[in-house]
Each structure stands twice: as C-alpha cells, then as structure tokens.
C-alpha cells in the first residue's frame, strides 16, 4: 500500500517540495543578508535593556531595512495549512473519480487503504512543516533577538504550532471531501475554515489560554522585567489619578521638516502611569503547547471523522 499511496500522492508531494523550494529561494539570500547586517552592525551588543543612542540608531536602521520584508513573510504563516489542504487532494480526488472502487476491490481491506493513504499524507505534511519551521526560524533569528518571538507574526511560524496548523488544514479538507466527495468544494471549505480558525485563535482565543499579566508602572520609571519582548495585548497611559490620556505622540508636532517634541506637554502628561495587559516572553512554550494541542486535537478529530465516514459509507 505504501507504494500505491505514494504514487497516488506524488504530484501533491512534488508541489509541496516546490513550495518549500520557492520559500527557500526567497528566505536563504535575504536571511543571509539579514544575518550579516546584524553582525556587521554589531547589533548583538545592543540587546541589553539600556541601549546606547548609537545602538538605538542601529536597531532603527535594521528595522527600517527589514521590517517590510518581515511583515511580508508573516503571511507565510498560511503556507502550512495550504500544504495540509493540498495533501488532502489525492484522497478526495479518488472519492470524486470513483477510483477508490478499483483500490477497494483489490485484496487489501478498506481500513488498510484508508490508513495507508491518510498516514502518508500526515507524514509528508509533518515533514513539510518541519522544513518550514526550520527555515523561517533560522531566517528570523536576528529579528527575534531584537524583538522577541511573542508577536503573532513570529509565534505563528515557529515552534510546534506549525505542525498542528498543517494537520488542521489537512483534516478540514479531508472531512469536507469525505462528506462531499468533490475536490474543489473540499479545498474551498478547507481553506475558508482554516483561515477562520486561525484568525479566531490569533485574535481572540490565544490571549485566553493563560490569563495575561496586568501591570502598572510609573511612566517615567523602567517597565517590569518580564515586559521585554512580551506579547502586548493592550497598553495605555494614564495621568496620576488613572484617567487615560493621549499617548506621547500627542506631544509631537512638526515645524517644517523637523519633528519637535513639546517639553511642557511632556512635563504635564509624562508623569503618569503605564498600564499594560501582556503575555511575558517566558510563556512562549506554554502558549505554543496549548495552541498545538488545540489545533492538533481538532485536526485529529477531523481526520478520524474522515476515515470513519469513508469506511462506513456505502459505495
């Protein structure tokens, strides 16, 4: 069955390899460039909490150069799910074309056929996820040093969540395909469901996995130690009695080409408090673990459903 499953999934596997190769073609040169800029500009020395002015300048320059690329590459977080959906295609296409009847009337049982095909899709999906994570994690190393990896743009393509995203896409498309027996609707349902699920978790559910830290500190003093590189869910500034006030930006005006900051405004508003709700960077792996379990168990349930449904349902 292994050969048969492989042969039936060959095209999709090659497309997956192609996607990863394209990704590597984009990430390898830019990643090397970023890493060498990081070292050349001595940014490693600027990582402490109290950076010198030249350090800040260097960090700003670095950000200006790579931030747009970084936000572009944040979109690649959709890639694992797309690969998962793609890998569901061989299974669904066989249901659509009726060629499963050919396979089912050879000498192997339906159960073995289903587990062989789904098993291979899962293995290839996980292998692709591994390569994807390794590639993006390597690429982002300098940025992570500077900005941490709690922000969704980084969190979503590192660690273990990527594997669960891939299986989630695969499971959605398989379940829709098992019921519908049409590849195109299954892929559309798979993609829509994947996108909706990811947005839901990113914007609503993730911050509820572990109750975030709520902290208040003097605006003129240092921020708490665990605030550094944290995922900031909300943040505002208040005056001394706790009324929210406009951020510091309100004190910024401009005359001609020069940006100026009004000192009296700072004097008036600057001495208040900072209030923030955030997940400290130390919770990275805990949050990764929970999110992996959430997507992973939904994915597993969907894949099992597709298997059982296909096995039970009449030809």
């Amino acid at each position, binding site marked *: 069955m292994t050969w*048969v499953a492989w042969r039936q999934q060959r095209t999709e596997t090659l497309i997956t390899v192609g996607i990863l190769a394209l990704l590597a073609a984009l990430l390898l040169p830019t990643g090397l460039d970023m890493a060498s800029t990081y070292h050349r500009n001595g940014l490693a020395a600027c990582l402490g909490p109290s950076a010198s002015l030249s350090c800040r300048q260097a960090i700003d320059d670095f950000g200006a150069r790579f931030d747009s690329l970084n936000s572009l590459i944040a979109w690649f977080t959709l890639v694992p799910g797309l690969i998962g959906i793609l890998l569901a295609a061989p299974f669904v296409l066989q249901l659509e*074309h*009726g*060629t499963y*009847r050919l396979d089912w009337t*050879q*000498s*192997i*049982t339906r159960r073995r056929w289903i587990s062989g095909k789904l098993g291979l899709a899962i293995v290839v999906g996980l292998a692709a996820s591994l390569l994807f994570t390794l590639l993006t994690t390597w690429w982002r190393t300098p940025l992570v040093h500077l900005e941490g990896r709690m922000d969704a743009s980084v969190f979503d393509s590192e660690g273990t969540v990527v594997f669960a995203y891939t299986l989630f896409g695969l499971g959605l498309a398989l379940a829709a395909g098992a019921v519908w027996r049409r590849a195109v609707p299954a892929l559309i349902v798979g993609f829509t469901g994947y996108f909706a699920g990811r947005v839901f978790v990113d914007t609503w559910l993730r911050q509820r996995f572990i109750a975030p830290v709520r902290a208040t500190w003097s605006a003129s003093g240092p921020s708490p130690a665990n605030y550094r590189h944290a995922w900031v869910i909300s943040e505002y500034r208040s005056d001394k009695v706790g009324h929210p006030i406009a951020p510091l930006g309100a004190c910024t005006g401009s005359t001609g080409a020069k940006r100026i900051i009004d000192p009296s405004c700072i004097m008036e508003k600057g001495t208040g408090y900072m209030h923030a709700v955030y997940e400290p960077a130390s919770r990275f792996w805990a949050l990764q673990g929970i999110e992996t379990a959430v997507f992973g168990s939904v994915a597993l349930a969907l894949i099992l459903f597709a298997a059982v449904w296909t096995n039970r349902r*009449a030809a």
Partner: protein
Amino acid sequence: MSESIALEADGLGKRYGANWALRDCTLELPAGSVTALVGPNGAGKTTLLQLACGLSSPTAGTVRVLGLSPQEDAHALLPRVGFVAQEHPLHRSFTIRETLKLGRKLNPGWDDAYARERIERLGLPLGKRIAKLSGGQQAQVALTLALAKRPELLLLDEPVASLDPVARREFLNTIMEAVSEDGVTVVLSSHIIADLQRVCDQLVILSGGRAELVGSIDDILASHRLLTGARGDAEEVARVHAVIRESHTGRQTSLLVRANGHVYDSRWELHEIDLEEIVLAYLGYGRSAEPAPVPIEEAASR
C-alpha cells in the same frame, strides 16, 4: 451452504434514502457458470454487484460469495474475487506498468507473468499512460487487473456498454478464455442481450430492484413459448402455465408463457421465441404485481 454455489442472495435488499435499489432478491448462481444480469437502468444490477464485492452493505437480507460474507470476511474473500466497476475506472495518470505494479502490490495472488503476457498480446506498450488509451484498451487493462489476481469469481458491471462492436467482441472473448482455461465463475451485467447469449449460460432478470427470473438460459429458452390462437379466453392456459405477456390483435390472441410441462392444447399454435423477446416480456411484465421470482428449474423439469 455448499461450495458449488458461487453467489447466494437471500432476501437481499439495499435502500438508498427512501428508494430500494434492490429488494427481496433471492438467487443462487452455481460455481463455474457465466451469469448475465439484465435489466433496465436503475434495476439494481450495479447494486447487486457492489453488494457482492463488498463495496456496499445490505440493508436487508444476506449475500454470500464463495461461502463468505463480502462485508465481514473481506480480508479472506477479496483475493478470490475480481471486480471491474462500471466505466472501468483506472488511475488515469498511471502508466500501464504502474497499473500492473498496483495490482502486484495490492494482491497476494498476483500473477505478473500472466498480466504482462496479456498486455503484450493486446499490443499495448507498458509505458503508455492510461489516459492515452482508448475506451476498449482501458477496459482490457481493467480486465487484466481483475484477472491477474487469479480470482475464482469475476464480477463485471456493464463491461461492454461503452465499447464499440470490435472491442466488445474482443472483451467477451477474453472472458470466455478465462472461463474455459481457469474455470472462473463470471457474473456480468449488461443491457445488450445479443452479446450475452454467446457468452452466458445463466440469466438473472432484474427489474425495479427485484429479480424477475433466475435460471439457466437453456431452460429459459426451452420453457418459454409463444402461443397464438383465436381471440379468446386465456384463463385455461393460465391455470397450468405462467402467462408472462398477453396481447390481442384483431381476432388473434398471443400469449407468452412459461410452460409448466408441455402445452397440449390444440387450440393454440406454439412458437419458439428468442431470449431477447423473453427478456423484454419480463421487463414489461415487471411493472405488474408479480411477487417473488419462481425458480425456472421447477418449470423446466419435465
């Protein structure tokens, strides 16, 4: 149950939603026979074959193939049954070589030498893609796949429907070869009756999900007669023989009967009729309310 019965259905029924695709089907097909399953589209032919190869499960009754249940004993039964589905679906992106490799990988009893020899005899290059083959060639490859697993029972669903007359003849010849060389039992569905008579020795007529007639073609031909006579009452005939179709033209009445022994009544003139006409009579007849099929052996044993 005895080993000499290849396929046995008892009260077999299959319902899809509110519709019975097959209902109350009871029949026995002897091992070594070549059975034609005839009936209009939607009569239940495909359903019966899919139940027999385990692709679907019965809603009512039982089906046993080579003494085993296709649903519960799939592991033991599948290597012994070859199946070619309607439109003979193959993996279109596979080459012929890969198609044979699939057969080898998925069947423990695979006879690779036989498969290659057959493909060679068909003059098909192994490297050619299935999608590039003609319908007749695809049917032959599908048949090769089914035969090279060396089945005891071969189930073919409308195997010749999409083939031109030449391809159809070649296909049926292959089946006859397999029957004479290996003693394979064959059940094939079709609505082209002329072809079947050349190949088959058993006939099952399905209509509206029910088996209307089950028996050997020789017995069916021997027992069915067309009676013509002066227009009148057919009641007397019907008392002894089963009247399948009754028609009246002007002063004449003609009756198609399944004779219970000889027809001695001198008022009627006896005519032999061909299989096609018998089948058509049953299919027209299938719409009236005749309950379970009567085994033809009873009517034919004189």
